[in-house]
Every structure is written in structure tokens, then in C-alpha cells.
């Protein structure tokens, strides 16, 4: 298996490319296929989100990668090698898998849960201990948490453990099936942000399934929209999908406020600003403010421009009427 040259941070190894090649799945006794001729290429290190309405086959597609669901025809390849080539348990030990209800083993401590796959692979005790601490830190938990039991953790904490467990053996691929669906909005938002940051550090290939369009737009490098019957409708970056939805379905799905959402994807730091002196009128906003928030502020205060700063330094001015041009 030849690996892509990308190396992630945090002591993690390379990511892998995943290819769906005309994959089809039919269930007996049903007319419509669960997945109909799905072809998709996911470059190594990409955070790819599968999104769509229920029944769209996105979870089915995900579970075919680690062969929890078999596919009828076509192929799925990881780094050029078919998933059918390996014995299934070996395949799965090389793939991280995170589900919505987490599925932590209640009879094992957090630490033992995390080191499940390493233990299966025969790692030494020292190695597993060190790795557990490393992962706890990565997902934002305390070293002491290793000795606790799942029943003693909150929902958000459990999902963090689930993520750590999936990353334990350092797999090149991570599959996530609506992992934040069962959490309250505040925890969900926090975990989404952290996962996003984590992915920048770790750079594995991630396939992330969700039915929440906002989550998809926030997290994905690429988004694949699947409708009923597993039909791939559009596969592109979030910005491209928002700017040019492929059809009416996608347009409805991403929402009528897609222009505003596109503005949320960029910050003032990305924009060429008009030069301005410190004496210009207008509120001062950090360069990390999203364009959408800047627009919102200007509408609220009925002003026409804001002064963009980086700390104390004035970088320039941003005017309300420029917002439309960015689109």
C-alpha cells in the first residue's frame, strides 16, 4: 500500500485515499436501491461529509467502507487496495469507527476502552499507557479520567472518549456516523469546533455522516450530498455548493440563506481591505470576525463600515456594500 506523502501532526501517521467505484447496494424485496452506482473520490487527508435526508444511503455508504454492510457490486478502495482484499477484522482494526451512541464498553474503564484496538494488535503495556495519555490530552480530557467508568461521564465526555478510542491505533481512515447527534446544542457546537481543530492537526481522511446541513458546512473540506436512493447529487467544497447548487433539491437543502452562509465561511482576514487611518469612523472589529458577523453588526448599528484591526494595529476598512462583491 503506497501512502500519500502527507504526514499529520500530533504523532499521527499518514492518511489514505478512499475511492468509491460504482458501488451499488440493493435490499431484497425493495424496488429502489439503497445505493445506486455511487462513485466518489476522497483525497487523502480530506474531511469529507456525507449529508442528505434520512434514507439517503449515507450511513449505508459509510458502513460499507469497514464492511459492516456488504455491497453488491462495484468496489471501495483504500489507497488503491480493495476493502475486500483484507480479512474483515484486520480491515476494521485499521479504521477508526465512531457512532452516535458511542458504544463504550460499560465494564471497562475509559483507559481500557481507549486501548481496545492496541490490545488486539498486541501493543505493550507501556506503549498503550503512553498512547492513552496522549489521546486524552488530544480530545480534551484529563489524565485522571482514564480510571473512570463510562457511567460516570457526561454525554460529551463519552463522545470524546469514543473519538480517542477510534484514534488509538492510529488508523489512516476515520469513519464517523452522526457522532454528535445525541448531544445538546452547546456541547455539539463545542465538539464540532474541537474536531475541526483536531483535524487540522491530525489530517486523517475522515468520512463524516450527518443530516444537519449546518454541521456539514462548518466541518467539511468537501461535502457529498446524497438524496433518497443514495444518488450523489453534488460533491464539492462548501463554498462551491453554496454558490452554485446543482439543482433545486440542493438549493432547498442548503437553505435559502445560502448567500449569508457563504459569508460565514470567510473572515475579514481573507479580504483585501480598503486602506484606512486610525481616525476612520466605525466600530473596531478583529480580523478574525466572519464577514457575516461584520455585516450583521453594520446592519444592527446602521453604519456603513467597520475598521478592521489586528490587536492594536489598524489593517484597513471594510464597507457594507463590498459584502455583495465577495460573493
Amino acid at each position: 500500500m503506497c501512502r500519500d506523502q502527507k504526514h499529520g501532526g500530533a504523532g499521527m501517521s499518514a492518511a489514505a485515499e478512499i475511492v468509491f467505484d460504482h458501488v451499488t447496494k440493493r435490499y431484497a424485496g425493495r424496488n429502489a436501491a439503497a445505493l445506486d452506482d455511487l462513485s466518489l473520490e476522497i483525497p487523502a487527508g480530506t474531511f469529507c461529509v456525507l449529508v442528505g435526508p434520512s434514507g439517503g444511503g449515507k450511513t449505508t455508504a459509510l458502513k460499507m467502507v469497514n464492511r459492516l454492510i456488504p455491497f453488491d457490486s462495484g468496489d471501495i478502495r483504500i489507497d488503491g487496495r480493495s476493502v475486500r482484499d483484507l480479512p474483515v477484522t484486520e480491515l476494521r482494526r485499521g479504521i477508526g469507527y465512531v457512532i452516535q451512541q458511542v458504544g463504550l464498553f460499560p465494564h471497562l474503564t475509559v483507559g481500557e476502552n481507549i486501548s481496545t484496538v492496541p490490545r488486539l494488535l498486541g501493543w505493550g503495556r507501556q506503549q498503550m499507557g503512553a498512547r492513552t495519555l496522549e489521546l486524552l490530552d488530544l480530545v480534551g480530557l484529563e489524565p485522571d479520567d482514564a480510571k473512570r467508568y463510562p457511567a460516570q461521564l457526561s454525554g460529551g465526555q463519552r463522545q470524546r472518549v469514543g473519538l480517542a478510542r477510534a484514534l488509538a491505533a492510529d488508523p489512516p481512515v476515520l469513519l464517523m456516523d452522526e457522532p454528535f447527534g445525541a448531544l445538546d446544542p452547546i456541547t455539539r457546537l463545542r465538539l464540532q469546533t474541537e474536531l475541526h481543530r483536531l483535524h487540522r492537526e491530525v489530517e486523517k481522511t475522515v468520512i463524516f455522516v450527518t443530516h444537519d446541513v449546518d454541521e456539514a458546512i462548518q466541518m467539511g473540506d468537501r461535502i457529498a450530498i446524497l438524496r433518497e436512493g443514495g444518488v450523489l447529487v453534488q460533491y464539492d467544497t462548501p463554498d462551491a455548493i453554496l454558490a452554485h447548487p446543482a439543482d433545486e433539491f440542493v438549493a432547498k437543502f442548503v437553505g435559502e440563506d445560502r448567500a449569508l452562509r457563504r459569508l460565514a465561511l470567510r473572515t475579514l482576514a481573507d479580504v483585501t481591505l480598503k486602506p484606512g487611518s486610525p481616525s476612520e469612523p466605525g466600530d473596531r472589529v478583529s480580523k478574525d470576525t466572519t464577514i457575516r458577523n461584520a455585516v450583521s453588526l453594520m446592519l444592527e448599528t446602521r453604519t456603513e463600515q467597520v475598521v478592521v484591526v489586528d490587536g492594536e494595529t489598524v489593517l484597513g476598512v471594510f464597507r457594507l456594500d463590498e459584502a455583495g462583491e465577495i460573493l
Partner: protein
Amino acid sequence: MSVLAGAPVVIPNFGQGSACVTGDHAFCWDWVSEHWGDTLQPALVQHIELTAIAVGIGFALAFPLALLAHRYRRIEHPVGVVSALLYTIPSLALFQLLVPFTGLTWTTVEIALVSYTLVILFPNIVTGLDGAPDDVLEAARGMGLTPMQVLTRVELPLAVPAIVGGLRIAVVSTVTIATIAAFLLPDGLGYPIFLALKEPTPFKTEIYAAGGLAVALAIGCDLLLQALRRALVPWASRGLA
């Protein structure tokens, strides 16, 4: 009128007893201390033996059966129905029905006791094995555990509380049913009671002493197994969610 004509008489005649005994008081400690060695203790030991053998064999049979039923669902229902019917058979009747086949031996008693134990343990073990939550099983499969590993590392450990719970009921039930063995054999704690009842005036002390021991044994085992269950299940006792 004794069923067991010719069985060795273990208790002394009233005529030779102390004042307490001849006076037929409610409870005579002197009799207890005097006959602990020849009556009560052997009976207790026999009773423990009877129970231990029955539970041991019963478990050895129930466990593989339960594993099979867990794997091949179809077995579960028929075995369940047979078990329920078996359990309605009164112990004394079951003992007697086995006598033509295996005589007045420990084997007879043990076959009956093992049957009852089996009937209690089988559903408990099956329920325990079925108890692993679906998401845990899915995560385990997805992580690459083989089916055997899922069984040994996830389903079995999670089944332990139910199994020990079943053992608890089985042990206590067996202790109580084993007293009936006295109708067939001069063994176990039922026998002193049985003999005492045969006397024209039932000898209270013997009844209370042997009966008390039997109850104490049953409750003792119950508490012991409760403690065992707590000890084996650290993840359940400290929960929050």
C-alpha cells in the same frame, strides 16, 4: 410408620435425655451442644455437599446450553417451555418418580436437584448474554473484534451480573429443596427434622436447630452471592448517568 424402616436412629431416646429434653421445653441448648457433632454438623455438611454438587453440575450444563441458545435463537423457546413445565413438578413427586430408575441414592436426589438448578440458571444466563446494548456490540464489531472476541470480551463480562444473580437464586432454592431429600435419604438437614416429626411427640429442639441451620445456610449463601455480585461489577455500583 416410618418410610425408612431400618434407617439408623440418630437421636437418643427421650428417656435418656436431660431434664430439658424430657420436659419438652421449647429449645434445649444442652441437646444442641451435645449432639452437634453426631447429628447437626454431619447433616449440615451433607446439605452443603448436596447443594454444591447440584449447583455445580447444573451450571456446567446450563452454561453451554445458554451459549448455544444465544447463538441459535430457535433453541431458546422450546427449552424455556420445557423448563417451565419441569419446575411445576413438586420436588417430592419428582424424587419418587426417579426412584424406580436410580433407587434410593444420592444420584436420584441429585438428578432432581440438578434439573431445578438448570431450570433457574438457563434463562438467567441467556438473559445475561442478551443484555449487551446494541450500540456497544456495533462499536465492538466496527472496531474489528472477531465474533469470539465480542463474546468473551464484551458479552460475557456484561452477563456476569445476571449469571451471579441466577446462581444466587439457584443456590438458595437448592438449599431449601434439598431438605426434602430427607424423605428418601438419611442425609441433609431435612433428616433430623423428618425423624423428629416421626416421634409421637415431635422433638422441638431438633426441629428448630436443624431448621434454623437450613434457613441460616440459605440466607448466608444469599448474602454471600450478593456480595460476590457487587464485587464483580465495579462499573455498576458507581454510576452517575
